[in-house]
């Protein structure tokens, strides 16, 4: 059984079964990445387009490698080279990609809902690689994969998400995914960076790490954008680091086998202390590897592939 949907726009609309299917399918994909010759013919003849309106080396490279390992023809379009700067609308871009014969379009965009516009105008599959503050579903999938692999399961775990929740699509996607999978999720950040109505998403908000971290099995540390300080959302980077920086001492309040995660790129010494990022708790590098595997799984499933057992030829 495969995925019975054209697009992946958010984790919100995924069922538990769909999430499990993607995570299960990522297992054999990771074996491919470990091979000497990382190439399977699964997506041969498929055209995969990375349409990035925001710079993101990490996510774009991850999708690109995922496509290449599966023999898809991958093309990158980033803002500097696209017609976006010339004022072409997203709708027209979608129509252009459609007639060029794109099979899968991966979009990163600063405006929430941009992938939905593409999806409406494209018969190709659309994958949301991050839209505004809305969702970043593949990041949540790779985070869930990493947690599941290390902890055996997600259900029953206590996960703390720390930082700028207000502007974080990673936080939103993880909240949807982790709560669906049965984790207990709390969000920790300055009150100016906690969005309104966040508790209604089924998470507990805290404004201090001391309150939120005890008993945590997983800590997901979010990148703090330095421009938020200029907008007056917190006084200084120094004070932010003092109040919300994840230090070794604070990690000590969590469970002894706590996992430390970060979607990258990190501001070492701001939201995360260097010794924490490099500690035995840290699975930050595994997240990157798993990201490629999860994206391979997703590409495979959206291209019509049938699940983990059929995934490797």
């Amino acid at each position, binding site marked *: 059984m495969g995925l019975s949907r054209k697009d992946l726009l958010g984790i919100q609309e995924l069922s538990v079964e769909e999430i499990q299917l993607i995570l299960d399918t990522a297992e054999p994909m990771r074996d491919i990445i470990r091979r000497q010759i990382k190439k399977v013919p699964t997506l041969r003849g498929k055209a995969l387009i990375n349409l990035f309106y925001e710079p993101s080396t990490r996510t774009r490279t991850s999708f690109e490698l995922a496509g290449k390992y599966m023999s898809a023809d991958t093309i990158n379009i980033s803002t500097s080279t696209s017609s976006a700067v010339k004022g072409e*609308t997203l*709708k027209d871009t979608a129509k252009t990609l459609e007639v060029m014969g794109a099979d899968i379009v991966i979009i990163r965009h600063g*405006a*929430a809902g941009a992938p939905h516009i593409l999806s409406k105008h494209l018969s190709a599959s659309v994958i949301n690689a991050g*839209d*505004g503050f809305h969702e970043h579903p593949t990041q949540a999938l790779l985070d869930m994969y990493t947690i599941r692999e290390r902890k055996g399961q997600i259900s029953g775990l206590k996960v703390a998400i720390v930082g700028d929740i207000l502007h974080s699509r990673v936080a*939103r996607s993880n909240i949807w995914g982790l709560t669906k999978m049965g984790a207990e999720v709390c969000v920790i950040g300055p009150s100016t960076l906690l969005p*309104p*109505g966040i508790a209604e998403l089924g998470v507990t908000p805290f404004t201090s790490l001391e309150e939120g971290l005890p008993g945590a099995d997983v800590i997901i540390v979010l990148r703090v954008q330095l421009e938020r300080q200029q907008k007056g959302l917190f006084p200084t980077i120094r004070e932010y680091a003092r109040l919300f920086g994840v230090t070794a001492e604070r990690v000590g309040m969590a469970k002894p086998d706590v996992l430390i995660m970060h979607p990258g790129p990190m501001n070492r010494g701001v939201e995360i202390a260097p010794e924490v990022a490099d500690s035995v708790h840290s699975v930050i590098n595994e997240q990157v590897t798993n990201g490629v595997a999860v994206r391979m799984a997703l590409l495979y499933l959206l291209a019509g592939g049938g699940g983990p057992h059929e995934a490797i030829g």
Partner: protein
Amino acid sequence: MKLLVRGGKVIDPANDFCQAADILIDSGKISAVGQNLKANGAEVIDAKNKLVLPGLIDMHVHLREPGLEAKETIASGTRAAARGGFTSVACMPNTNPVVDNQALVEFINSRAASDGVVNVFPIGAITKGSAGSELAEIGDMKSAGAVAISDDGRPVMNAQVMRLAMEYAKMFNLPVISHCEDIDLAANGVMHEGYFSTVFGLKGISRLAEEVMVARDIMLAELTGTKVHIAHISTAGSVELVRMAKKKGLNVTAEATPHHFTLTAEAVGGYDTGTKVNPPLRGADDIRAVKEGLGDGTIDVIATDHAPHTVEEKDVEYNYAPFGIVGLETAVGLAFKELVNPGLLTVEELVRKMSVNPARILGLPKGHLGVGADADITIVDPGLREVVDVQRFASKGKNSPFGGWELKGLPTVVIVGGRVVMQDRELV
């Protein structure tokens, strides 16, 4: 030219007259109201089983001319008004250039005279260019026929400027219509702040952005004694502030739009930019409060804030789309659906909010069907059903979240100054 509206139920609350009657029209005026009037050669309009109302007045419309004719013109906007059951509209000055002087008020009047299908009453700007700093030539604009002043869409942030504007406008007995929005609190938001803005990942506009300005302008109204009209009220807190102001006996009135008493922020789901409007669609509690305010008289007027945009402007990412919903052609149907049919307002009360009160607030000699009155009449078929088709709108703007909705209770005939301009849902 004589016209006889025969056999309808006349609802004329201003004259305390609500019963089956005929209305005879002669030379653009109502010449007789009564039973079994003789046609005597007059053209007869059969209004059996229909409601005969004083012509509806929409006191908050954006006709976009001059300067923004791709969105709407006085011709297309007034046709939309006629199709929607309105005989008069008051148009906001945020055109290009902004209507901030006598010449532009005269331009609108002359364009309305040549192209307009319904009566058009210009609203002048409060400040030059609606820039919020220097008063516009309010006295001149009044002489040219402006019926109110407003910097709608670009709220006057400086309280001292607003105070002076109110004091100055009072000399001319002109109402000041306030678009209440604290720009700093609104903080570039694109939808109502709350659960749904968090879920959709869009920047929110808090209720406070509206309410602090409603509070400010009520206090300024108290200080200056000027007639202040609060435009498009959208939150429970604003309703309560206006209620308190009225209890105090202040000269404050308020309006609500059909979209604000019909839709909540949940409608933004799917990122349909047809739902992007300022003030934004709020919460269920706010809708309840707005309806309550309409019911108890706190909110005097239903106005559409008809804000047409081109398809190209709206067919973009939610963040980038302009604010605005076209309202003229769905207002009556939505008012029946949300207010009259469920029993929240009687037809008589609805007529007060869509004709009597806007006429009173703007000082127009309209809003009633007494002998000698202008023959502006709207005939509504309370049983007529229609599915909203935005492609059939007379407005150039198709930006409505109500496409596909079935509405019941729709205008079938519109008479302006004794002339039939709309019949059977089609412009004449």
